């Protein structure tokens, strides 16, 4: 990490409150007279609800109501596809689905009563694997998924499809691959994991005297959430206000509506405040998780190491509902962009997201990219080995350069993939060695991630005070990334005042025109553009009152690269993998705040490290077995390898501030870098994440090279 952090003054406005425990998150707000909610969940992945006996639960002192689907509006909710009921009606489609909810005067009464609700579910055939789910004879998760509002599938498609994206030219690609001097085909898989935020999802819905609801909760997209809940429950504008609240971690998991529609519906029904704070086990087993994926890559090159073609075919298990995905295609951008980073004379991409009887999947830091980059960057190393070419040289010869057109035909003014890779390789040479345990084999592996980002529309308001200070009102919560600090620093610069004179304040959803929420690596860029417009408007004003902007942010997108090298040691006797160092070269434009920027890089690298060697939700037959944060195996401080960062500053960014994204860069390529390093160390290829000791050991046993290594 960058040095001298201890010497520089803190620029996080929230640092002291967070270090003293004073910051209030959703669960820290209590409301006298609030009803507490506990959820009764299905323990089977697919079934018909035969009966629900509420009598014992209703007899628990303090219980106000035990509700089934028929007791609440029969509506469907979602970010784009509205396919998920508030409470399961007739059938359950995943283990963890809400079958009944208990509302009571205390959390203890609600939870006790929930345990006493007798649910009888007749199990139905279920399907868990997304490839199995595409079989003609597979059980249907939904009868008519095309009929849901917002659906992007049609009646002629397989009934278990949530989304299909196809691009490129499969025939030309197949032809070029067949003619290639060298080609490889392999299938790579990743399991589900959770975003791993420590703050479980939580909601507090408070009815107002005018009948409207004020909602506080774990959302990174307050304006979108207001729209989604209002659409779901048929509320008119003004009937729902989402309150500003910081998040205890997000990483994509807190964009889904979660239990917000349920809590608003309950608050409207009972006309009392309603509070639902998930227990961690519920959060891990019943809320939006990362899509497990199976990706098949065919890639070829000519004798000189020029790529000839790539076919990319991804199948993602979307879970029982598509409701947690916001994209226009209801697909995952990482898969759609899989062919983006390299010069490919021919290519084809297919990405299918499939309904399965598993917990509904959502977004996690660069959605789809971890699976896609693990597959493509592993396949590149396999191709390099087959062709007898150095893996770094193969990449350097084929990465997009300035002015090159990507697979989709877009010409990029700047593309610094090769320079970023070169910087990583140069740092590897100078990086101090890390001791390798006696008898272990060591190796290095490379992987590159290319990420396009653009600015998004947002809105801001500047309120001057008579003492020369300013309050800037923002529409998004501080999720932890430092987005409020970025606004403060950029605005202070644009106004020519000290950052101490600028206070950033998130406001409720009625107070600003709108915002798409935190995500897509667009916040710093979008905020920078909006801050510039705000400062211009302030400069042109009479300086006698608030000014507001609604930024439309029409700037061309830019590319960011991360080239990462893993140094590993592998115990040939046990297969144990120790990651010694993660070296991240990052292509950046102008850095707004060096410490916050570095935290995004380090945190990303460690999350990627977790995906590479540790994390797995352990989904089996529709049940999530990693039902606590220990079993999920999130990295702790002692697990973390040495982290080395090289910044390639001075790149082309967006707006006068010349900034680009960093939040979803360094987590993505680490698993491929580690798998490539393991192959380099002991000659075996693990194509299934995480790269565990067991998998390496079995691969060593199965391979000739394993015998050689011993």
């Amino acid at each position: 990490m960058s040095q001298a952090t201890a010497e520089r003054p803190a620029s996080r406005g929230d640092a002291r409150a967070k270090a003293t425990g004073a910051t209030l998150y959703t669960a820290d707000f209590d409301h006298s007279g609030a009803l507490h909610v506990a959820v009764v969940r299905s323990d089977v992945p697919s079934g018909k609800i035969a009966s629900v006996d509420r009598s014992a639960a209703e007899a628990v002192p303090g219980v106000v109501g035990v509700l089934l689907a028929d007791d609440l509006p029969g509506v469907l909710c979602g970010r784009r596809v509205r396919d998920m009921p508030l409470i399961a009606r007739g059938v359950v489609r995943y283990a963890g689905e809400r079958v009944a909810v208990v509302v009571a005067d205390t959390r203890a009464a609600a939870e006790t009563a929930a345990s006493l609700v007798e649910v009888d579910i007749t199990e139905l055939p279920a399907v868990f694997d997304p490839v199995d789910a595409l079989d003609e004879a597979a059980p249907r998760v939904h009868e008519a998924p095309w009929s849901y509002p917002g659906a992007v599938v049609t009646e002629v498609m397989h009934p278990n499809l949530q989304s299909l994206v196809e691009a490129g030219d499969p025939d030309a690609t197949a032809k070029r691959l067949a003619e290639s001097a060298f080609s490889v085909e392999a299938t790579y898989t990743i399991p589900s994991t959770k975003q791993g935020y420590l703050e479980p999802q939580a909601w507090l819905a408070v009815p107002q005297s005018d009948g409207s609801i004020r909602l506080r909760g774990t959302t990174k997209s307050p304006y979108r959430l207001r729209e989604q809940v209002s659409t779901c429950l048929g509320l008119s504008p003004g009937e729902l206000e989402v309150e500003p609240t910081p998040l205890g971690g997000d990483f994509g998991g807190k964009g889904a509506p979660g239990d917000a529609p349920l809590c608003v519906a309950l608050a409207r029904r009972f006309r009392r405040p309603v509070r639902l704070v998930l227990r961690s086990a519920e959060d891990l087993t019943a809320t939006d998780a990362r899509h497990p994926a199976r990706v098949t890559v065919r890639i070829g090159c000519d004798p000189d190491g020029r790529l000839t073609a790539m076919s990319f075919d991804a199948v993602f298990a979307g879970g029982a509902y598509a409701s947690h995905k916001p994209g226009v295609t209801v697909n995952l951008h990482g898969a759609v962009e899989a062919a983006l980073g390299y010069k490919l004379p021919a290519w084809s991409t297919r990405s299918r997201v499939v309904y399965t009887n598993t917990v509904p999947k959502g977004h996690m830091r660069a959605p789809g990219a971890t699976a896609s980059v693990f597959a493509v960057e592993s396949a590149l190393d396999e191709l390099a080995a087959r062709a007898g070419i150095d893996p770094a040289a193969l990449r350097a010869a084929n990465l997009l350069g300035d002015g090159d057109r990507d697979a989709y035909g877009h010409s990029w003014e700047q593309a610094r993939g090769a320079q970023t890779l070169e910087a990583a390789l140069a740092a590897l040479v100078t990086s101090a060695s890390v001791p390798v345990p006696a008898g272990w084999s060591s190796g290095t592996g490379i992987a590159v991630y290319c990420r396009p980002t653009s600015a998004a529309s947002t809105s801001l308001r500047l309120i001057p005070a008579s003492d020369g200070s300013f309050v800037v009102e923002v529409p998004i919560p501080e999720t932890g990334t430092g987005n409020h600090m970025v606004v403060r620093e950029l605005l202070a610069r644009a106004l020519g005042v000290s950052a101490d004179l600028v206070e950033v304040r998130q406001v409720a959803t009625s107070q600003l025109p709108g915002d798409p929420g935190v995500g897509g690596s667009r916040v710093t860029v979008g905020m920078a553009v909006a801050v510039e417009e705000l400062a211009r408007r302030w400069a042109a004003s009479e300086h006698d009152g608030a000014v507001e902007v609604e930024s439309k942010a029409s700037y061309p997108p830019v590319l960011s690269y991360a080239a990462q090298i893993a140094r590993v040691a592998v115990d040939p006797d046990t297969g144990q993998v120790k990651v010694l160092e993660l070296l991240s070269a990052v292509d950046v434009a102008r850095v707004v705040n060096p410490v916050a920027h570095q935290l995004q890089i380090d945190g990303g690298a460690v999350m990627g490290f977790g995906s590479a060697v540790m994390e797995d939700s352990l989904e089996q037959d529709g049940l999530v077995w990693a039902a606590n944060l220990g079993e999920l195996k999130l990295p702790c401080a002692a697990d973390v390898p040495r982290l080395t960062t090289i910044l390639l500053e001075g790149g082309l960014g967006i707006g006068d501030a010349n900034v680009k994204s960093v939040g979803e860069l360094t987590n993505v390529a680490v698993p491929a870098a580690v798998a490539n390093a393991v192959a380099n160390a002991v000659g075996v290829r693990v194509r299934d994440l995480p790269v565990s000791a067991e998998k390496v050991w079995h691969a060593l046993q199965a391979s000739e090279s394993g015998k050689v290594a011993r």
Partner: protein
Amino acid sequence: MRLELTLNGSPVDLDEDPTATLLDWLRSLGLTGTKEGCGIGVCGACTVLGDGRPISACLTLIGTLDGVSVLTVEGVAQSEPTLVEAFVDCEAMQCGICTPGHVMAAAAAKLAGIGASADVDSEIRYWLEGNLCRCTGYETIVAALRSYLER
């Protein structure tokens, strides 16, 4: 059950259900700096000190605390300003939900007298093993604890 304990330096007499958790009791007093993360003692977000040692408030029943001195992040914020300053100066947080627990782990590490070995970094990481952070990658948290030990 009647018991006497010390909370953030002040004696407290209480008559509580002994099976209530320390976490729920603290939060019912408005001491919400102690967070519920995993609820089963693996994430460290509810770390407090019991007689100077780090304990998970989510697993500690009130009935076990007779005569014990309990220190929470709210207490440490008053009694150990240099610890808070170290976390602030090093920007040892992002979302902040784990930060009170890390602050308490740091307080416990200093009380235990760490920092004597040549490999302070490993010692620090050992003392932080019980506290998860998903945001930062731990580098600035380790730096904060090192800085605190030096102050």
